């Protein structure tokens, strides 16, 4: 089939001919050069440079150390940083691997047709940037700047977002909303009038009871939370974990509720029932701060633990006991809102139920519950006003998902299809720091959209699958080699952190701020980039904040005094919430007004057909989705994912530990690669589990290629959350294929 955009494998012709940079060889220690360098390094570190981590989005601040040859040797946490308290997680410690990864993108690449075959040809920066600017200018002139969209995750998005807004488009989406946290923040918003945010303001440090629902802290290595959970264990806090899998957190919990998957909402409603009908709720708090209690009480009248038992398979006595435990600890209790919550399509309603539980327990704004986070507003470096876009993502999703507070990535993908109405069609994509094929589960739509857009530029440090669809690939240097925007985090104490380079960019890679500025200047938007170097921006911003680049280079992190008041509600304090009623809405008027259930209603979800098992996916502490799958240090810890199978199921299928199988879904999709079987009592018999982010189909990722299975490709069924457009991904089922399937050419 002839397509406009063939998937190009960044191949030997493109890169192999280039000499390795001086810095890339010695990492494979054991070479004498490494030993020599190591001996020198041991003699004393030569430099220490502040940074904040880009390996996940907890963004811990740390220090990058270099030896006397200027080589990066290690990264440690910044003791003054509330995200990490001086201790990075394995990914942050292994961040050096992102720098030394010899598979990194080395030079700009341009798609060219040579003898009828599309190939990537290495190019200089001027040629690549000229081409990108020319194409963007042309598309903007013909169809308006709004027809250009940005998909991003992490720091590069800041710089390209600025560029896009300067051009006159606001079509900017991050999969972290519709593929991850969106339902939670929407559910919270309609209840408390505010989202949860990141880092979550959970006061785990001082809690007496922590309830985790499908949240596997410890496996999702969100550093500050893991640290505080360990402290909570030390202090003897009660942990309650709801998970069909015996997660690490479950193993540390006093109560583990091995729930039947997809029934969490029934459990939550039963807990609400117990709190209300056993009169265990926080009466003062509910009277002072909430709206709709009587409506809620009537709503949950019949949602008893006995009712929930038939749905969740959890003993009514256990449901009652755990509700009482929460009430005993209240208000120092946290029913954790979770983070990746796009599961079954009713996710906003499920997180709503979690929000309601917290309101009944009085934990929002209480010590040991949720604190009021505060951040510092970093002033924008002076630039002309952004032009007002003629249309934006809000117009695309206003009718469909009125309560989605951020752009829904899948809506922007759909708007990129050819059949989209001309005046609202996305024609060009800038993709920065997100590997869409392993992120967005709507594979067909995504594939079609990537064919239909007229131009695509991808910015990344690694040759991720998404680069294969680009017209131009721009190689970004890693976070250890660049300045970036200041990290301003909402926390107990407002604080900022600096990222500065510890070494010159390796190969021909460049920081995103530089690329955005270069493109801006080529597009006649130089006034938006009115500085020579990004340090000019940082210096100006830091001066506005009463500090300086020099000071920040020494401290890395700076804390500011709170100005918004105490961390928690004061006794008897009145407070107006940002909702229609000014109260915490147990009955959500915003949902009622937009035609959704104002209070959560449990609806059953599809169950696996005979011979199939629900595909549950999650995180491993040493990896961040697919981003780290090629990192030499982190693949050394874990180089593939396993499929967890209950021993009873394994017996049925005659599976053995360590055997490789393919997985197949009811729609006939077979995993591109085999996955190793792990037979374990830690998983229910109706489900299988795997860590997300493996099964890369991109040969240029030499360590990650073909290792394990890619859960995203097995997700043929996506249940869209009607409230905010999230893509529910836990409604997929798989079975085992034990014989080797017919070999096929793999594309991502």
């Amino acid at each position, binding site marked *: 089939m002839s397509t406009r955009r063939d998937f190009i494998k960044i191949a030997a012709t493109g890169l192999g001919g280039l000499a390795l940079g001086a810095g890339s060889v010695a*990492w*494979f*220690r*054991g070479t004498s050069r*490494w*030993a020599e360098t*190591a001996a020198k*390094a*041991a003699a004393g570190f030569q430099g220490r440079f502040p940074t904040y981590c880009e390996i996940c989005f907890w963004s811990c601040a740390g220090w990058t150390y270099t030896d006397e040859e200027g080589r990066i*040797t*290690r*990264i*440690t*946490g910044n003791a003054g940083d509330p995200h*990490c308290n001086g*201790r*990075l*997680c*394995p990914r942050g*410690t*292994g961040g*050096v691997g992102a720098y030394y990864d010899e598979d990194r993108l080395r030079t700009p690449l341009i798609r060219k047709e040579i003898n009828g075959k599309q190939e990537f040809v290495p190019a200089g920066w001027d040629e690549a940037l000229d081409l990108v600017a020319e194409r963007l200018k042309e598309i903007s002139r013909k169809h308006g700047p709004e027809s250009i969209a940005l998909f991003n995750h992490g720091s590069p998005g800041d710089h390209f977002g600025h560029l896009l807004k300067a051009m006159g488009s606001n079509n900017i989406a991050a999969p972290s909303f519709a593929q991850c946290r969106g339902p939670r923040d929407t559910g919270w918003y309609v209840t408390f009038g505010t989202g949860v945010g990141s880092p979550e303001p959970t006061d785990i440090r001082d809690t007496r009871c922590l309830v985790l629902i499908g949240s596997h802290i*410890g*496996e999702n*290595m969100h*550093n500050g939370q*893991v*640290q505080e*959970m*360990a*402290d909570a*264990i*030390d202090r003897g806090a009660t942990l309650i974990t709801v998970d069909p899998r*015996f997660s*690490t*957190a479950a*193993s*540390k919990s006093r109560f*583990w509720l*091995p729930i039947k998957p997809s029934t969490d909402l029934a459990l939550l409603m039963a807990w609400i029932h117990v709190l209300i009908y056993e009169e265990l709720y926080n009466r003062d708090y509910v009277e002072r701060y909430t709206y709709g209690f009587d409506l809620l009480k009537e709503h949950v009248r019949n949602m008893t633990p006995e009712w929930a038992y038939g749905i969740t398979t959890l003993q009514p006595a256990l449901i009652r006991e755990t509700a009482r435990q929460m009430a005993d600890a209240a208000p120092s209790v946290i029913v954790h809102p979770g983070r990746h919550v796009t599961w079954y399509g009713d996710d906003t309603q499920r997180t709503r139920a979690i929000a309601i539980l917290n309101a009944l327990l009085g934990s929002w704004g209480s010590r040991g519950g949720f604190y009021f986070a505060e951040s510092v507003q970093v002033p924008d470096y002076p630039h002309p006003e952004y032009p007002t876009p003629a249309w934006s993502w809000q117009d695309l999703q206003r009718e469909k998902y009125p309560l989605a507070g951020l752009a829904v990535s899948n809506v922007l993908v759909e708007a990129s299809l050819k059949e989209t109405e001309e005046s609202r069609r996305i024609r060009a994509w800038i993709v920065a720091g997100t590997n869409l094929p392993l992120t967005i589960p709507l594979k067909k739509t995504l594939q079609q959209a990537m064919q239909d857009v007229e131009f695509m530029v991808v910015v990344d440090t690694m040759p991720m699958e998404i680069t294969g669809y680009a017209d131009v690939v721009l190689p970004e240097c890693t976070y250890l080699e660049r300045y970036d925007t200041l990290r301003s985090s909402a926390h107990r104490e407002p604080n900022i952190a600096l990222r500065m380079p510890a070494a010159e960019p390796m190969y021909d890679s460049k920081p995103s701020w530089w690329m955005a500025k270069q493109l801006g200047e080529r597009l006649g938007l130089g006034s938006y980039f009115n500085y020579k170097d990004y340090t000019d921006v940082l210096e100006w911003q830091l001066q506005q904040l009463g500090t300086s680049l020099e000071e920040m280079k020494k401290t890395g992190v700076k804390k500011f005094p709170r100005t918004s008041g105490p961390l928690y509600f004061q006794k008897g304090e009145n407070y107006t919430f940002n909702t229609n009623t000014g109260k915490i809405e147990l009955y959500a008027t915003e949902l009622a007004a937009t035609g959704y259930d104002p209070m959560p209603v449990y609806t059953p979800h599809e169950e696996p057909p005979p011979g199939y098992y629900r595909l549950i996916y999650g995180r491993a*502490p*040493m990896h961040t989705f697919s981003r780290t799958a090629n990192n*030499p*240090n*982190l693949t*050394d*810890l*874990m180089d593939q994912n396993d499929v967890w199978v*209950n021993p009873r199921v394994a017996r049925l299928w005659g599976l053995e530990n360590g055997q490789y199988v393919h997985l197949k879904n009811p729609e006939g999709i077979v995993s591109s690669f085999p996955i190793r079987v792990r037979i*374990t*009592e*830690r*998983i*229910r*018999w109706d489900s299988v589990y795997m860590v997300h982010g493996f099964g890369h189909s991109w040969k240029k990722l030499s360590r990650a290629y073909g290792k394990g299975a890619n859960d995203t490709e097995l997700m043929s069924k996506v249940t869209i959350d009607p409230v905010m457009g999230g893509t529910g991904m836990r409604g997929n089922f798989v079975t085992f294929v034990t014989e080797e399937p017919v070999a096929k050419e793999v594309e991502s």
Partner: protein
Amino acid sequence: MRYAMAIDTKKCVGCSDCVVACQTENNVPIGYCRDWVTESVTGTYPLVEIEIRSERCNHCDNAPCVRCCPTGASHIVEGGVVMVTHNKCIGCGACIQSCPYDARYSHPEGYVDKCTFCHHRLVEGGRPACVEVCPTRCMYFGDLDQPQSEVSQILARRKWKVLAPEAGTRPQVYFLV
């Protein structure tokens, strides 16, 4: 002085940060490690338990690796730390065979390598890199001869076990259970 380490299995989440931190601290080649994480699962769903342990050289009081070393490369220094002098080691591997904990590996440069409790940090008054990095603070380190040290305190307060006590090696890495 008697250095020892205690690791709280109730807090450890098995993230392997100790492993990466050790690798970058001690220039352990990729593909090798001086410390590692094990997980043992017992019981039947849903009555399951797991124990996660960060393991390494036990710096035994009665160290078979030191006794069997033909060149004296394996030796014990002050504080009971078992060390290997790389340029005295002939790489014969007798110590690897004798260790009941499989704590040693052959370095690609021809000598045997293992955990040193980050001896280079201890002599400067520091603590091992794994202890310093652990996000859950589940590792305690110090001098067992000092009753006030954090390791003495925690061992006095908590129930603990050691690995393979039947081997008679008197290991000095303790696991809080």
